[in-house]
Structures are given as C-alpha cells and as structure tokens.
C-alpha cells in the first residue's frame, strides 16, 4: 500500500512559540489594515445601486466614468469585473426622496445614450435601500454569533470543558485570521463571503475535533503519558488523514477559484485560506491552549477516571498533569 507520512514522530508542539508569533503578526497586521481601510462591504450591506454591464469590445474606462458623472453619480465606483469587457458600476447611497429603482434606470439610460441602444448589455442590477442593507448586516452578525454559540454548546455537550475551550479559541483564531486575510486581499464582504466564513468555522472545528477525538481516545489508554506527548502522538497519528483530506478539499476549492468565475471568487479565496488556517490552528492554537489549560487547572483523579472509564486504574494515574507542567515550563 502507498503510504505518506506514516509512523511519523514529529514534535509539532515544540515550535508553538514561533507559530503563534507568526500568526499574531499576521492577525495584528491584518486588523491594522482593516482599521485603516475599513471593511470593503458589498452593496447588500451598504445599500445603493450596482450595475454589471458587458461590452462587446473593451471600452474606454474614462468614457464610462464621464458618462456616469454626467448622469449625476459622481461618487460612483467603476471596476473591471473579470474580463476587460465586463464592468461593475456602483453608486452608493441614496438621495432623499428618490425611489430605489430609479438610479439603475438612470444609469442604464445614460450608458445606452453614450454607447448605443444595446451597448453595453446590463447583465445584473442590484438596488438596495439603506434600511434593507442595515437589516442584512445585522442578520449576518447574528448568524456569525449564533453559529459560534451553537458550536460551543455542542462541544460542551460532547467534550469536557478543557477541549471545548481550546477548540473554541482555535476557531476564534480562524475567524480573526480570515478577517485579516480578507482585509489584506481587499475582498468584498458579501453575504456569500459571510457564508464562506461560517463554513470555514465549521471546517476548522471539524479538523480540531478529529485531533481531539484522537487525544481523548489516547488518554483513555492504560499507559499514562504526558499530555504533551499524547498531543504530539495524536497529531502524528492523524497526519495522513489530515494531509489527504486537506489535499482533496484544496483541490476542489482550487478548481472553484480558477474555473467557477468572478462571482464566486471571493468565496473561493476565503475557503482556500480557511483550509490553511483551520489546519494550522488545530495543531498550533488548540494544542498549546489545551496544554496551558491543563497546567493551570490540572485534572483531578476523578476527571482522569471519567476520561477513561474502561481503563484499569494504575496507582500513579494523576501523573499526567505533572510532566506536562515540567515539559512546558
């Protein structure tokens, strides 16, 4: 049988300081970037009007800009969308007393007057009132908070609290680093991107759970072993699975990124990054946090016993906590 990374004994946890340093720099950098530039929110959240137009020939961008300005929408953003023949025109905000749908009509009429009766073709329009925008923003925030809360509840139910807290903190890390990523990439945050963000949360949690499941199992085994070693062993044992799964999911995501088109691209970027950060955090965030918690609040004899109900009791069972403390200082 073909095997990769079989029977490895890599001390993953050893490098945790460097790893956490790198991710901290990335997150802080991204958040500073976010603070400076703000979130690039899509029209769904800001309200306003968006037109996606397709020209037969690549047009002069200055001509589009002039047309839009002449129509009275001087603040409008004009962006190339995928190919040099496709553009989006985004007029944010609304003038008082103007019906939502009239801006799209105005812009369309102005463009047709300038470029011809069927040129450019308007392939997509979105006109969203400020009130709907506010509502969608609020719903997105609620969705993120509730999904974090629900997964927390589930973890509390399935794992003992030490694992739960470590997994949740690892997930919070993924959320932050993904935010940093989308700030640095200047990706537009739309409802679809929020969906991708929540999927990343699920996926990363999935990965953490797989490793913790193995840790739980290894802890139940008769041989007492420091948690540090149990963690490393569990990561090494699940390594082939991790590599193979991440490779297949990354392959699917890459094909989405490369071939599924412009509309879904921000979604694909977030997913691709999510795979990386999810894998990273399962090892370097969840692991060290679990060790730290274990050192601060060592397992009592009872805890240990309940963690491995079938295991024969050895006289030196509580040994687990002391070597951990010794190894991690």
């Amino acid at each position, binding site marked *: 049988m073909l095997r990769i990374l079989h029977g490895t004994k890599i001390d993953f946890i050893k490098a945790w300081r460097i790893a956490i340093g790198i991710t901290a720099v990335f997150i802080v950098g991204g958040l500073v970037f976010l603070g400076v530039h703000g979130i690039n929110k899509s029209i769904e959240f800001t309200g306003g009007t968006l037109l996606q137009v397709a020209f037969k020939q690549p047009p002069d961008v200055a001509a589009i800009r002039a047309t839009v300005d002449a129509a009275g929408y001087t603040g409008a953003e004009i962006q190339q969308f995928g190919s040099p023949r496709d553009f989006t025109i985004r007029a944010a905000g609304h003038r008082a007393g103007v019906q939502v749908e009239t801006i799209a009509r105005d812009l369309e009429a102005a463009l047709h007057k300038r470029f011809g009766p069927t040129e450019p073709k308007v392939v997509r329009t979105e006109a969203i009132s400020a*009130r709907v925008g506010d509502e969608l923003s609020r*719903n997105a925030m609620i*969705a993120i908070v509730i999904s974090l809360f*629900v997964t927390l509840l589930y973890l509390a139910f399935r794992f003992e609290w030490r694992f739960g807290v470590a997994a949740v903190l690892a997930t919070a890390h993924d959320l932050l680093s993904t935010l940093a990523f989308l700030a640095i990439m200047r990706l537009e945050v739309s409802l679809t991107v929020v969906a991708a963000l929540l*999927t990343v949360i699920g996926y990363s949690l999935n990965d953490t*759970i797989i490793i913790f499941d193995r840790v739980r199992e290894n802890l139940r085994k008769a041989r007492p072993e420091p948690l540090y070693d149990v963690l490393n062993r569990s990561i090494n044992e*699940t390594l082939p699975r991790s590599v193979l799964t991440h490779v297949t999911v990354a392959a699917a995501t890459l094909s989405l990124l490369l071939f599924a088109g412009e509309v879904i691209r921000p979604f694909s970027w977030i997913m691709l990054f999510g795979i990386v950060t999810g894998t990273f955090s399962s090892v370097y965030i969840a692991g060290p946090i679990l060790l730290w918690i274990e050192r601060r609040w060592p397992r009592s004899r009872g805890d240990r016993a309940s963690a491995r109900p079938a295991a024969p009791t050895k006289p030196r069972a509580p040994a687990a906590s002391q070597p951990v403390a010794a190894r991690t200082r």
Partner: protein
Amino acid sequence: MSNLKYRLAIVVGLVLLSVYALFPRDVKKRERRPDGTFYDTISRRVPLRRGLDLSGGMHLALEVDESKGTVANKSDAIDRALKVVRTRMEGLGVSETVVQKAGNDRIIVDIPGLDDRERAIKIARDQAFLQFQITDKTQAFEKILPRLDAIAKEKGLTQGAAAAPATPTQGAGLNGLLTATDTSKSDSAKVVGARKDSTKADSTVLPGVTGGTISKMILAGSMPGQFMFDRSNEDVLKSFFSRPEVQVAMPPGKVVRFGSDTTVIQSKTYRFLYMLDERPIVTGVDLIDAKPNTSPTEGTIVEFQLNNEGGRRFLRETSKHLKDYMAIVLDNVVMGFPPVINGAIGTKGQITMGQGRDLQAAQDLSLVLKAGALPVPLRVADVRTIGPSLGQDSIDRAFRAGTIAIVLVVVIMLGYYRFSGLLAVGGLALYVLYTLATLAGFDAVLTLPGLAGFVLSIGIAVDANVLIFERIREELDRGKTVRTAIDEGFRHAMSAIIDSNVSTILTAAVLYQYGTGPVKGFAVTLIAGIVASMVTSIFVVRTFYLLWLTRSRGAQTLSI
C-alpha cells in the same frame, strides 16, 4: 449473509428512489410571445429548481410606502397587500414565481426568467384603484383660474420652457390635428362629432384670461372639463397642483387629474388635464373580470365586467349622465380619452389604453384590475435582476469547476487507496446522486453559492472515507485480520465522523435561518451534502466491503 442482503436492498432502494426523484418530468411553463402575451408550453426537464442567480430573473422586495401618511397596522396591511400582489403575479404567469411575506413589513417577489425590471415593478406596485368619474361641466376650473394665478404669483412660480400658443388661428389647426392624431376615437361617430363641436368653441385661450402664469400655460380641451398644456410645463404644473394651498382653493366636490395621453399639435406635444366630479359613479371594487383586446377603431382596449351591484349602480348613474363625458381614472390618472355616454351602460364596459400602448400593457392592466387594488401604497425596498445569460454562464462555469474537482478527487483516491479508493469513488458517485435527489425531493433551490458548496462538499465527503481507511490501515498494522480490521476501522472512525459533521450541520442550519436567497441555497446544499456523505461513507462503502469480503471468501490481504 442475510444482513448483506438487507444492506444491498437498502442501497439499491435508495438509488431507485433517487433516480425517481431526479427523473425528467413534464413541467408546464409559460412562455412569452414577442408581443408580450403568454402561452403555455410543456417542457421536460430534471426537477431541480434553479435560484434566480442561475436562471436569471428578478428579486423584488416591497414595503409599505409611508411618504403619504402613516399606516397604523403595517403587518396587517402587508398581509392584505400580499394576497393582491400574489394574484397579480400568478396572472403574470411566470412559472415558479415566489411571492411571500418577509419579516413583518415586507413582501418578497422572486420571478425567474423575467428581467424586465420596470414592468414587474409596475405590476407589483401599481395601486390599481379604478374610478369612473364624470368630467366637470360647470366651468369650475375656469372660475378658479384667477385664484390659481394669484397663488402662483404669490409663490413666485415661473412658467416652464414653453408658453401656450395664444393666437386665434390655432383654433382650426388644433381642431383638425386633434381629430387626426387621436388614436382613441372613442365609442361612436357621435362622440367624435360632439368633440368637434366643442373643439371649435373652446380650443383657444381660455375665456376670462387674467394673464396670470397658470392661465397662460393651460389651453381648453375638446370637451367640458378637459384642458391641455405643453408637456414641458408638466413638472411645474404637477408640483403646483400638489401644493396644499392649491388643494384648498379647489372648488368643493371637484378634483384635478392629469391624463395618460398626449397629443401633438403643430409639432408640440400637449398633455391633458381634467377637472372631474370628485364622487366616482362606480369603483374598481365592483369589478369581477377584465381582459385585454384590440379593437380596429380604438386600438388596444381592456374589456371589463362589473358585478351585479356595480352594474346596477353603473346603469343608474350613466342614465343620469347621458351626453356627459366619463373619465376612467386609474391611480388618479385619467386613462385614454374620456368617452361620451350615449346611453345607459350596464355591467360591461371598456377602457381605451390610449396611444402607443401595446397588448402587453393592456394585459398587465387587466391583470392588476382583476386582482384588485392594493390596500396600501407600496414602495421598492430592494430590487435585483440577473440576466439569463449571466445565469447560464454561472452554471457552465460551476459545472466545469465541479467536473475538474471530481476528476482530481477520483485521481487522488484511486492513486492512494487503490481498490479501497475504487469503493470510495463508487460511494462518491452514489453520494452525488443522493445529494441531488435530496435537493429535488425537498424542492430546494439550487443557487451559485449552493453549487460552490456542492463542489466543496465533494472534497469534504471524501474526509469520512479517509478517516475510515486510515483507521483500517492502523488496525491492519496491528496485525488484525482483514475482516476485523474493516469492522474496527468503521467502528472507531464513527465518533469522529459524527462529531465533525454534526458541528457543520449546526452552522449550516444557522445560515439557513438567517441567510437570504443564494445563501439559503448554500446552507441547504451543505446540509443535504453532509447527510448524504454520512450515509454513503458509513453505510454504502461498508456494504461494498461486505460484498467484497463475501465474494472473495475470506481474503487475506486488502488493497488499501
């Protein structure tokens, strides 16, 4: 052995059920002819519903318009408006149109395939309040003109671009042109005759002109209570007549209404203005049927029918108003050219659509008339349109990305796990089938993020297989027999598979609850995908193994 038989029966049963759910079936679909009318066709297709972002179409959210007065019970008003909008949209006949209430104060309309934004908005939002009102014959407008001029002077109102032509020679030309350009030649020759007479009498500057701004702008029309003004003055006059002090100055029991039609006199376009009796003789509440038609003399018309009570009232009123002109007023706009009442009219009548309106406009009007008036005015809160070509493009791209993803996953699985990989690929094929069938079965909507989620879930679906296979390898390493290793592998991998999948399902459920449109589609696809993935990896692939074990009669080695 019998255990295996049951398992196989379930797997095959699920396949049959899925094929049945996905089997192409006849769908009645309404198509639009070039002239805008509809006809039904039957097409055969796979019963998977496509979201607006894939089929093309438009999404419309309407809310109560409170710019002209607040509405006390919005939720109730929306409920009543919902019924009207739904009836109208059903009449529009685009299959799979969704009309539903969102939140407390919003109506959502999703129309696949239709991207004529203006038209759909008009149908959904027009209040369609129909009134029949008699044009004023007491010269009430002429009497208040000096007062209006005074108000205009007081407010410093200036005339628009064009002044009304004031030369007396206009009379003859006006008369001739009016008869020639008028497409709505009304009921009978009698009407035209009557109009000619009145035109001759009045078609010059109004009598008693004080020289004020308003009276300079307004010309007499061809019937009592009808007036005309140059179209360039339209905005000025519209805002003038909506002023509160002008409203107050109106004679009691009379209202001013603008007309839908224009007429061209000596290359200038004029619009009509009417002074009407405020009390309608009958309203659209009594209307029970309306249908579009074309008449050789009047062009496009809408024929309507009143119920018995309305018919009786109509008969009584029209017999009282013989030789009067009756304005048909829709949402406070006078439609077409008011016909003269030549005799008492009963339950049936018609609305002349006026110039330049095609059959589609007549069809849309009969639609909104039949559905009834909206109880509250609505305004657009959000509207999105996606062209059908963009939707098709998205499908093509997603399909290509999906195919490439599947090929990559198959290559990885076969290359790494060999025979067991083949079983996993078989499971994956069933996984795709089950997921699509589940979506069809629950009538879920497939959206672009949903397709992306599906492609993604193919990658994730492999995870469960990988977990199991790695576990079997470990058990084999410990020297267990093939059969025991397989049993143990499945048993040990179970808790990890369930834990990780349940947490993803929970996230997806939250997304479904709080997401809209495309995101909801994503959540549904993800949930269907995860459930199907658990079924295939835990149950189907295991059945394949059992089948193989039975066939190979206790194999000593396993290609994994």
